[in-house]
């Protein structure tokens, strides 16, 4: 896949816009996922994903082709998420649980025709709780946790994406892990 990405990037740099569609297709899920876990709702996740891809397209000439494209793309997307979190009002997190469920609330699930089996209901409930707890993390811990455990990236990649030393990434992951443990140990 890396070879395909490299080829598409070369085409895009030459000015072939259509080649960019494949790049978007390949990374759309992971970038959307990043936005959803960082910001807590589908609308903003989609917004951030679109913005990240457009920025990547516009700045593609500044991308060093010897490096990993996904790292570069994640850096753009993560920075957009962080900017947005910082611009938000601090009390945003209080209503995150409403916007985070966005069309997938427990109630709408319950009122649907076929009732969910007990265990599926529980797993859905757990999903909501985990998402809520991730969103409660301060932004600097949230980004490392999402990149590490949702996007499953290596510590080195995370250090490149966030442009911070490996040691800082580790410390933040440890603190994020500790905060999540305290909230999630009884679920």
């Amino acid at each position: 896949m890396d070879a395909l990405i490299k080829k598409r990037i070369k085409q895009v740099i030459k000015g072939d816009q259509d080649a960019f569609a494949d790049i978007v297709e390949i990374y759309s899920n992971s970038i959307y996922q990043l936005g959803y876990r960082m910001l807590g709702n589908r609308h903003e996740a989609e917004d951030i994903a679109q913005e990240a891809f457009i920025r990547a397209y516009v700045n593609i000439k500044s991308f060093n082709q010897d490096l990993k494209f996904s790292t570069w793309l994640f850096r753009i997307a993560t920075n957009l998420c962080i900017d947005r979190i910082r611009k938000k009002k601090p009390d945003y997190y209080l209503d995150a649980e409403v916007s985070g469920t966005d069309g997938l609330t427990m109630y709408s699930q319950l009122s649907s025709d076929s009732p969910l089996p007990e265990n599926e209901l529980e797993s859905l409930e757990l999903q909501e709780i985990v998402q809520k707890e991730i969103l409660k993390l301060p932004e600097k811990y949230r980004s490392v946790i999402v990149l590490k455990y949702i996007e499953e990236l290596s510590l080195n990649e995370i250090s490149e994406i966030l442009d911070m030393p490996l040691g800082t990434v580790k410390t933040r992951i440890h603190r994020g892990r500790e905060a999540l443990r305290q909230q999630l140990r009884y679920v």
Partner: protein
Amino acid sequence: MKCEEEIVELMHEYLDEEIDPQNEMILREHLKGCKDCEILFNEYKKTIAVVKGTSRMQAPPNLTSKVMARLPKEKKKVGMQRWLRNHPLIAAASLFFVLMMGSVFSTWNQEREFSVSKQENLVVQNNTVIVPEGEVVKGDVTVRNGTLKIEGEVQGDVTVINGKQYLASAGNVTGQIEEVNEVFDWIWYHMKKTALEVIDIFDENEE
């Protein structure tokens, strides 16, 4: 936590998958004997499993088309280049065609003026070339954009481009008589001429 920071640090090293075998032994030994640390360690592992276990989100299906629609417009030139890349044969053929037609028409237009091959005893009156009665013209006669009247004798081929030739009853042409009027005839004439020239070169080489 009652246990030392050191053990917690080792747990994190383990969870980061960066622990060395020696430290892993120390950690395992400690966990066997320390209930508190074992619980803590399990809570960490469970937390990670739960976070990793969140379902993967699918991007909206039209995300790609929305992004593509919002990209800044690409330059016309590029669209053309892509078309050329996708249709190399047609591109090459049409480029050849355009160049060829261009050169053909430009030569055609250049040669609108009256001209005649130079032979001493040809008489030129306005746009009419006359081979006078009783005269013998040696060599090929070519007339462009004019009329040729043959009353004497031509020892060679006669070619009239964009004009008429009249052969009087007393006139005589030893070679071929050819009239070229249409553009395509003219192209054909040029091709034949070129081909004959090529053959001539070979003939000369053989001699």
